[in-house]
C-alpha cells in the first residue's frame, strides 16, 4: 500500500434528525485502523454534533456523542471547528464537549483535540487533504 494519505471527514449536519452524523462516525472508526492521517471538520449544523449535554432519551435514538471523546485513543486528534458556524448558531466554544487526547510524543500529556478555525483557515485545511469525505 502507498504511503499515508490525509483524510478529512467533513461533518455538515446536526447529530440527530438524519443518519449522516452517525454513519460518518462509523467510517471514521473503521478508517482509523488504516494508519492514515485523519482529521475531522465541523461546519454548518455539524457543529451541533459536538454540543455538550446531548440527551436523546426522548428521541429513542442512541446518543453517540461520547464516541467523539474516545477518538483520541484511535489516533484521531484533530477536530477542526469553524468559528463562523458556531457564531451563526449562537454557540460559543464553551458550549462544546471538552475533547482531548494523550500526546504519546509528549509524555502522554493531555491536549485539546478541538481546533477552532475561521472559514478561510478551514478552506486551507481542506485544500491540504488528499481525500475529503463529506457527510
Amino acid at each position: 500500500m502507498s504511503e499515508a494519505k490525509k483524510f478529512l471527514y467533513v461533518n455538515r449536519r446536526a447529530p440527530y434528525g438524519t443518519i449522516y452524523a452517525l454513519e460518518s462516525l462509523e467510517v471514521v472508526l473503521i478508517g482509523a485502523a488504516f494508519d492514515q492521517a485523519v482529521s475531522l471538520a465541523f461546519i454548518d449544523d455539524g457543529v451541533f454534533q459536538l454540543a455538550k449535554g446531548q440527551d436523546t432519551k426522548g428521541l429513542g435514538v442512541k446518543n453517540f456523542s461520547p464516541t467523539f471523546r474516545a477518538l483520541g485513543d484511535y489516533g484521531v486528534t484533530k477536530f477542526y471547528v469553524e468559528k463562523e458556524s458556531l457564531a451563526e448558531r449562537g454557540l460559543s466554544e464553551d458550549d462544546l464537549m471538552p475533547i482531548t487526547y494523550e500526546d504519546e510524543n509528549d509524555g502522554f500529556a493531555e491536549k485539546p483535540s478541538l481546533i477552532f478555525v475561521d472559514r478561510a483557515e478551514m478552506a486551507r485545511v481542506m485544500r491540504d487533504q488528499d481525500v475529503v469525505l463529506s457527510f
Partner: protein
Amino acid sequence: MKLSILVNEGPYTHQASDSAYQFTKAALEKGNEIFRVFFYNDGVNNGTRLTVPPQDDRNIQKNWSELADKYKLDLVVCIAAAQRRGILDEGEAKRHGKGEGAANIAPGFRISGLGQLIEAGIEADRLVVFGD
C-alpha cells in the same frame, strides 16, 4: 486517472446517484480507470434488484448493473448501511434468517465493509463524492 466514486444518496429522491452514474460513465468513456464505486448512507438503495420504476423513466439500478458488466466495475455496497436498509445478499439473508429468496442485491453489486471505502480513497488518485 484512477478514480474512486462514493455515492451517498438513494436513487430517484436525489440527483446524486444519477450524477454519479453519468460521471462514472463519462470518466470510463474518456479512458479513465474506476478503482471502485462505493455506496453508503441511502446510496445502498442503488443496489436493490427489486426497484420497478415506471417504464418511461430511467432504471438507475439497471444502469449501474449494465455499466458494471460492460467495464468490469467493482460496485460495493456497505454492509452496515445495507443491513439497516434491508439490502441483503444470499449469505446475509441466510445468516439473519430472512428466508429463501430474500436476497435482493442487484447483479454486478457486492456487499462488503467500510474498509473498502478507505482503501478506495487510498488507492485512487481522486475520490469523488456524490451526496446531498
